[in-house]
């Protein structure tokens, strides 16, 4: 029974693991230290020494150089996409899970195929159509695109969950005279809260950090989200690592806060959600 007991060998292994972890995260140390330094300090003999003060100018410079605006854009786009996908996904999944017959089965398979098929090939047709409809360089357009891109994931996660929900609550609500929509919003949606959290976390993460699609749909507009702002700021402040890293820190702040608040939930979601 020695395999899972804590012995001296386990201790040695743990020590080594901690050492590996320190090496693994050493870039993080560099990142944190540099964002606190003034520009001359970053070119001193030892730029990576522990800083004696925090150069707040880095952060104000970065904020003024577009990070502030981008933060607002990112929040609008991410929140919009999450809300739309929660409603689209849950409503569709409810229908698929609760409607007997072949149509539901076919739809479910179509959504599954949608998760697997790469979408890159369709990007140019989508881009051209959206441009004609004046939906590029717009919040609404970006949110609509994300809704299309991620709706299979949302429907898939919701359907799996609704299938495990007992029907009794909905049925008694209907017997009491509530309509379909009323039953859905008053009874079903509240019951879906755990899977809604999963959907929101995964879709929030994907949209918040996405660089590729905003580069296509929002590039050059005043609606650029954080990754795009970081990208143009990096080109503008070449070799001014302190300002660039301050900008990165700003862009990471909401995710970090979220990470600190909900790390358990998060890790469980990433393990379970990605497993499908």
């Amino acid at each position: 029974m020695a395999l899972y007991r804590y012995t001296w060998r386990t201790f040695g292994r743990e020590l080594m693991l901690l050492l590996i972890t320190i090496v693994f995260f050493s870039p993080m140390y560099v990142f944190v230290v540099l964002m606190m330094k003034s520009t001359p300090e970053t070119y001193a003999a030892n730029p990576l020494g522990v800083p004696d003060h925090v150069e707040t100018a880095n952060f104000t410079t970065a904020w003024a150089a577009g990070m502030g605006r981008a933060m607002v854009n990112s929040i609008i786009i991410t929140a919009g996409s999450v809300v739309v996908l929660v409603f689209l996904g849950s409503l569709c999944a409810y229908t698929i899970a609760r409607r007997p017959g072949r149509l539901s089965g076919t739809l479910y398979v179509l959504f599954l195929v949608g998760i697997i098929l790469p979408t890159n090939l369709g990007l140019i047709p989508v881009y051209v159509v959206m441009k004609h409809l004046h939906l590029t360089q717009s919040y609404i357009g970006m949110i609509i695109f994300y809704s299309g891109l991620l709706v299979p994931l949302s429907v898939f996660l919701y359907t799996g969950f609704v299938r495990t929900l007992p029907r009794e609550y909905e049925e008694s609500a209907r017997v009491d005279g509530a309509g379909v929509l009323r039953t859905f919003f008053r009874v079903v949606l509240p019951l879906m809260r755990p899977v809604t959290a999963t959907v929101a976390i995964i879709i929030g993460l994907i949209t918040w950090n996405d660089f590729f699609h905003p580069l296509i749909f929002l590039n050059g507009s005043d609606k650029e989200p954080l990754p795009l702002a970081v990208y143009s700021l990096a080109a503008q402040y070449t070799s001014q690592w302190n300002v660039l890293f301050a900008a990165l820190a700003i862009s990471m702040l909401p995710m970090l806060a979220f990470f600190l608040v909900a790390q358990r939930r998060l890790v469980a979601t990433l393990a379970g959600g990605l497993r499908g």
Partner: protein
Amino acid sequence: MATGPDTAPNSPAGGGSRRRARFARRSGPGLGQAPVLLAVPAVLLLLAVHFAAPIAGMWYAFTDWSVTRPAQWVGLENFREALGDADQRAALLRTVELATIYVVVVNVLALALALALNRAIKTKGLLRTLYVLPALLGSLATAYIWQYVFDYRGGLNLALRTVGLDSWQQAWIGDPDWALWAILVAMVWNTVGLTMIIYLAGLQGVDSQLMEAAAVDGAGLWRRFRHIVLALIAPAITINVTLAMIRGLAAFDQVMALTGGGPVRSTETLATQVYKQTFELGRYGYGTALSLIMTLLIAVAAIVQLTVMRSREAQI
């Protein structure tokens, strides 16, 4: 509950109950039933983005459509150009090379970490959470951190100087021989934690009593790993390898952040070429053709992988 149709279709329905269900639907939705209308918006979006657009894209790959020219059928011309161009061929091979190495490195590291963390280690929870952090911070942001590390006046050279290996200093990103490896490192660092989490979830299913029994029976570490652990986490391996393969073949963010495809086009990948040809040069037809090549590559890789994994899963 006398309203049969709601419960009957749940059971594997015979002809009779299906007819009853259909009858019930015609006379208005039953109690626990939702009208199809609720699914329509989601289905339309699905069909538009995941089916109609890629199919349209497939057609445009055979045209010379561009910003200045309407689409005209040119047959295989785009593919001939792509495969005839030495730079484009190099980008294609580089993408496959990068993806293959990335898949191996990220999975081996992640599995090793997961196995180490699965033990009775005190800091297990903390470490597990910590390793996920880079994935949360995003591919672009973490790439910039690595850009500093690999900069000529950056972290790695500083470290080399400190330990007296001055002659090893390099302009890592500025050197065509090294730049791709810098990208690989940034990609692995960004995703190894996420991959590890999926392995850990898989390892949770490995019964510790089974492992103990095997150990008592004299199975060494390697045999326990090979015959028990590997067999039981086979599904996790399939998922991780597939995800990593797709990520590797579509590598874009880190390339754009670290090198932009340079120096002298030595880090161009299929994805950066798709982007540049299509959206910077406005060559929609040619860009879609490259995109089609990338899609086929991903599809072939995924199918081969799933087939191999399936047969291996069956074998073990």
